[in-house]
């Protein structure tokens, strides 16, 4: 636990102890008096009853009607007899006094020691004097606790009035020994000790509970914090954030531009320093108590911004402010000073979202757009493609509502002769509607669903190849599929007759992070006997690496070069160069997007061997294609 938590516990503990002792200090004396009174009442109960009987029976029996009657020797002797009956070891003195000329005098004394004579002057203690005044007024008994030193041998005195004709004529003193008081005090001290123990125990228990709670809270908090950046981590995202009311937040996903390059150039330590400072800027740009910042991935930060700002523009201003701060900030590392930019994807309209993961996915789509558009920008998610929900895609994949449409790749010199059919994935909605990949592929990219879909597509096509023994099929693989060991193993374990008729088209749709692994697995596939085709060749630079490192069978020239080939001399030159390069390296070329005869003629003239496009056939189910019976398979 950190120093602040320890201090907090110390303060809380001290406060609880202070409250406990204040409670003891205020309550204990009252408790003590109450218990003492109760104990003395119990002890003196019998004596009170005895003297009440004297008042009731003795006075009537001896027809005593005044103090003078009471003073008569025979009555005093009779009274002495009655009082003597009360004597026991707890009693030190028993005597009665009467008041004459404001001086108290002995009426009768039945004590065994220090006996006084009738009419002897008696000075009560100050406390007793006050009690006697009260008794003469109220006719009610009193109990006096004597202070140590102010009296000798006596601890408690019970004062009971003798009432004749409704008037107090004398007062009986029953002096209990000091020992009785000591016994009572001992009992009270034991109770006090017990009470102090109980309260101390309860206080300790409360302090321990607070300590444990804080400790649990601290460790729980630690489990939810990213140690490097001090913002929340994915544990928090997975365990706590699903509970939040998503509608109250705007979801923004920040990604540090070209972070991988920084890591590669300056090392991980520099990367860590940048992440720390980046997180600090984010923390300073948003409200600590209301907005939530999570380190979502390596260099990705998720920010949930509370919507209570006046409008969405002010939320965007907050995001923009953060982006500007990052842009202006200097990130010193060693002697270098680095500058950064960030791309942000924002989902403003969270009301429609069923879950946080779907909202994040949409923010991710917007982030992807921001990256595609050149980075260092904020993109807001818009429902332009009527995307499906992740949950729905998952359900359809789980249910196996997957099918492929096939488009033939034909020999340009004999357009009925099919090289192979390219499998194009579709999802089938529960009502039978076909869902095209532009509605779902972008959403599930880089998720486990994509891997799941790729596996299902491979299985689907293997089934097709088993069913239709004379056709050849190509399946598209993304770089993420090529690092998916399960998928690669599934492919490698296929029988030879399938391997011979199954080709893989490698897409260049993602930034490849693990080239070595991709190349390694492609080599394994090649070794197994699969033919490999590079899709969209010319759209990016990464697939040149495949050319350099692998024996590629086909190059599929990118549609962007083909569709305007008749209008663009440069496109023609480029296609010509690709064809020349391919021929020199024994690689066959395929032109995509052949939509009309004019394009067909041009690509043929440029030496392209194979072609694919609407001019030959739209993608159809394999059954529809075979029913046409026009293809030389």
């Amino acid at each position: 636990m950190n120093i602040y938590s320890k201090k907090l516990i110390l303060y809380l503990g001290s406060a609880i102890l202070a409250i406990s002792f204040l409670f003891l200090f205020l309550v204990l004396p009252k408790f003590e008096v109450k218990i003492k009174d109760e104990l003395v009442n119990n002890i003196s109960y019998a004596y009170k009853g005895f003297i009440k009987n004297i008042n009731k029976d003795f006075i009537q029996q001896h027809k005593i009607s005044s103090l003078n009657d009471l003073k008569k020797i025979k009555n005093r002797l009779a009274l002495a007899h009655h009082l003597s009956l009360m004597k026991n070891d707890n009693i030190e003195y028993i005597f009665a006094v009467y008041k004459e000329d404001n001086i108290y005098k002995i009426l009768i004394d039945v004590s065994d020691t220090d006996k006084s004579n009738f009419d002897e002057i008696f000075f009560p203690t100050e406390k007793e004097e006050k009690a006697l005044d009260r008794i003469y007024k109220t006719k009610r008994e009193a109990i006096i606790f004597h202070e140590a030193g102010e009296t000798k041998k006596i601890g408690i005195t019970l004062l009971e009035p003798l009432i004749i004709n409704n008037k107090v004529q004398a007062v009986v003193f029953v002096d209990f020994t000091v020992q009785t008081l000591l016994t009572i005090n001992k009992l009270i001290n034991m109770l006090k000790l017990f009470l102090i123990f109980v309260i101390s125990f309860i206080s300790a228990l409360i302090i321990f509970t607070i300590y444990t709670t804080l400790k649990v809270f601290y460790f729980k908090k630690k489990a939810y914090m990213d140690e490097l950046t001090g913002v929340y981590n994915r544990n928090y995202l997975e365990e706590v954030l699903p509970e939040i009311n998503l509608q109250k937040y705007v979801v923004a996903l920040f990604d540090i531009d070209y972070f991988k390059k920084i890591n590669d150039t300056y090392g991980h330590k520099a990367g860590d320093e940048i992440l720390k400072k980046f997180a600090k800027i984010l923390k300073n740009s948003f409200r600590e108590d209301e907005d939530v910042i999570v380190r979502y991935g390596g260099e990705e930060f998720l920010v949930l911004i509370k919507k209570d700002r006046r409008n969405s523009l002010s939320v965007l201003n907050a995001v923009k402010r953060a982006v500007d701060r990052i842009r202006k900030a200097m990130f010193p590392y060693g002697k270098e000073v680095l500058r950064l930019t960030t791309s942000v994807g924002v989902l403003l309209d969270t009301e429609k979202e069923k879950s946080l993961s779907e909202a994040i996915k949409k923010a991710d789509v917007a982030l992807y757009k921001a990256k595609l558009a050149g980075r260092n920008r904020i993109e807001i998610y818009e429902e332009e493609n009527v995307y499906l929900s992740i949950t729905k895609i998952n359900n359809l994949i789980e249910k196996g509502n997957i099918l492929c449409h096939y488009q033939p790749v034909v020999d340009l010199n004999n357009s009925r002769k099919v090289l192979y059919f390219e499998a194009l994935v579709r999802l089938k909605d529960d009502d039978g509607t076909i869902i095209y990949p532009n509605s779902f592929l972008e959403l599930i990219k880089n998720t486990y669903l994509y891997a799941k879909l790729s596996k299902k597509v491979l299985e689907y096509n293997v089934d097709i190849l088993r069913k239709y023994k004379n056709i050849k099929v190509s399946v598209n693989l993304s770089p993420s599929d090529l690092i998916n060991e399960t998928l690669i193993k599934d492919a490698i374990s296929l029988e030879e007759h399938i391997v011979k008729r199954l080709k893989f088209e490698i897409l260049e749709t993602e930034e490849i992070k693990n080239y070595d692994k991709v190349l390694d697995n492609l080599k394994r596939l090649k070794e197994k006997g699969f033919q490999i085709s590079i899709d969209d060749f010319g759209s990016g630079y990464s697939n040149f690496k495949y050319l350099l490192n692998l024996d590629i069978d086909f190059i599929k020239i990118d549609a962007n070069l083909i569709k305007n080939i008749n209008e663009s001399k440069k496109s023609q030159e480029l296609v010509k160069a690709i064809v020349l390069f391919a021929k020199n390296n024994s690689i066959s070329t395929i032109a995509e997007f052949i939509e009309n005869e004019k394009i067909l003629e041009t690509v043929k003239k440029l030496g392209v061997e194979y072609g694919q496009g609407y001019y030959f056939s739209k993608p159809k189910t394999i059954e529809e294609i075979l029913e046409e019976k026009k293809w030389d398979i």
Partner: protein
Amino acid sequence: MKKTIIIILNVALFISISMAIDKSKLYEIKIISYIVSSTIGQNKKVCLYNFSNSEVDIYRKFSNLKIVDNCKNADIIIVKDLENAKTFNKPAFAIGYFTFLNCINCIGGFYWKKGRPQIILIKERLNTFHIKPASKLEKFVIPENFVNR
């Protein structure tokens, strides 16, 4: 340094003596010194008659009386356990009931009865010595004939 040691020793002695003397004895001395100073006046010379040396020391330490050794020079004598102190021909104050009864010069007395401190001041004897006690003590002033012999 020497002074400090003496002060510490005195304090230690005072504390140990206080602890040794029982509480009722201290209470008694407090009452007696109050009565004596309130009847004959402050800073009068007081002689303790028939007291042991240790008792005198206690009075010196715990009372506000100006204790003198020679009773002839004293303004009042506090008499203990003595049947007749009339020879002094000056006011006296008795400790103990019988001392009080037998000492005709005693203006009053202090004794314990039934565990309680008792104070008696005799009106006639106070008059003889022209002593007027403080108002707080008036309730203890009784006529000679009230005394039960």
